């Protein structure tokens, strides 16, 4: 794992050229080009076609570039995206050590084929399902490429709704568990401590700042976000 400053990870949907351009200029330490979560299914083939050029453009502006994929789509996504200039992938809905190993095998082949150094591509494991969290330690330690771990959109994937306290049900436990597993495995825990009714898509810079403060206090070392105006609060808090 390479040691980079990675306080803010801004996701940008590959189907939105203006979002990609904004992300490149946002001041984010890492731009995550999303091929799957925020891209309508019909737009996904075009997103894959355009991703190689987008990686080059965004990287030229300064941020490191990751792409977001899932175990079910990673074959097409990685063939489209693993080119020089790519630093890593966010593997959304990561669940099993076996998935992690097959992703690694594919990365190994593509790195060789396309002239990247062996092991150049890092992995952020986004544990968004109960199974992924239950087996978190095995998933994370399945590959040396895993540099960081996050809960991603676990609140949505696992349908965790707000409790009267304002915390999302089960999330305080999942966050603490993730910190412990991440530290035990020697990877970076990424995340912010969001509270209801905020969702990353709409959260204001001020609420992002509060979420980042709580996140830092809990042990997170940087966070993913969805809007360019959330980058500055993350950069200031996770500094």
């Amino acid at each position, binding site marked *: 794992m390479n040691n980079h400053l990675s306080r803010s990870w801004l996701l940008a949907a590959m189907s939105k050229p203006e979002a990609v351009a904004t992300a490149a200029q946002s001041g984010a330490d890492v731009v995550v080009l999303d091929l799957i979560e925020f*891209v*309508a299914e019909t737009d996904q083939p075009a997103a894959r076609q355009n991703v190689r050029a987008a990686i080059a453009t965004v990287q030229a502006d300064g941020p490191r570039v990751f792409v977001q994929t899932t175990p079910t789509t990673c074959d097409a996504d990685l063939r489209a995206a693993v080119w020089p200039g790519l630093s890593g992938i966010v593997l959304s809905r990561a669940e099993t050590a076996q998935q992690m190993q097959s992703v690694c095998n594919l990365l190994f082949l593509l790195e060789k084929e396309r002239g990247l150094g062996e092991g150049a591509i890092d992995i952020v494991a986004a544990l968004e399902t*109960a199974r992924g*969290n*239950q087996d978190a330690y095995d998933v994370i330690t399945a590959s040396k490429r895993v540099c960081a771990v996050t809960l991603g959109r676990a609140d949505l994937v*696992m349908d965790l709704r707000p409790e*009267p306290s304002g915390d999302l049900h089960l999330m305080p*436990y*999942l966050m603490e568990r993730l910190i412990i597993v991440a530290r035990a495995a020697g990877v970076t825990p990424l995340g912010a401590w969001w509270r209801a009714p905020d969702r990353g898509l*709409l959260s204001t810079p001020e609420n992002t700042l509060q979420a980042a403060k709580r996140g830092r206090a809990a042990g997170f070392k940087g966070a993913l976000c969805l809007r360019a105006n959330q980058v500055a609060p993350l950069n200031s808090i996770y500094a």
Partner: protein
Amino acid sequence: MPIVTPRFIDNAWRRGCDFVLLDLEDSVPQNRKAYARTLVKDAIPNVNKGGTEAFVRINHEHMQADTEAAVWPGLRRIKYPKTGTADEVRQLDAIITRMENERGIEPGSIEIDAGIETALAVTNVYDIAAASPRIKEFGATNGGYDMSRDLGVEMFVPYDQFVYLRGEAELAARALGLGVRAAPFVANTSGSVSDGNRALRLAEAACACGLRLGGGGLNPAVVESHNKGYTPSETDVRDAQWVLEQFERLQTGKEPWLEVEGRVIDRYEVERARETLDWAELCAARDREKAAAVARVQAAMAVPK
């Protein structure tokens, strides 16, 4: 409810409960355990007649005798308190299987509720949850008194002292695809188990965060609160319908999400809305079923002999 108190058992069918837990454990004194076992066979159809499901709570230390006394037609579930290991659950499963065969009950139909009430259980929680296909619902909401004692933590405090153990149990349940028995944290500093208002607030909070399995209560005063709190309110139903209407608009476009009136409308919100509406339907159907059963019994009782 204590199975040795006839006035509780005889009136159980009138209470509007989804289930009644017939207790052989803590509410039955040691010297009446043997007598209590003789009452189960008749108590089951007695509580069933109001459309209420019958569960039996056995004693941890009398697994075999209690289970043999409890597995009769009409029994839905055995609650096994103070589970310690997965092996214990497998032993219980084997006894139930044998009794189902002997008494002509559909094999595999009786569920096990493994009570998570000790530190040992928390340590083994995933293995316990995975130990038998008879475990359909799982969680540690009812750790309560026994758990407090076993862990040496205070019970009625204004913060969530069980966040770790409840999380462990819930994560195991979810990872195994079991029904999630969980509850949000609502402080109870008074120690009351019969406060209907508190029960209602707790049930509403649980329902709002998507939890669907009530943990049960110790007093009939909380039954109505549980039924009401776990039923989506009219506001919830209207909101869910609104989300689905907005989603119709979304599907006509190509966007995976929309912002409408400061809210995100996407597939996750839609799934939640659909789930809420389905749940509201199920609640209404269950209420009709219980009301019909109570009416049948009352009509039968009204006929002069």
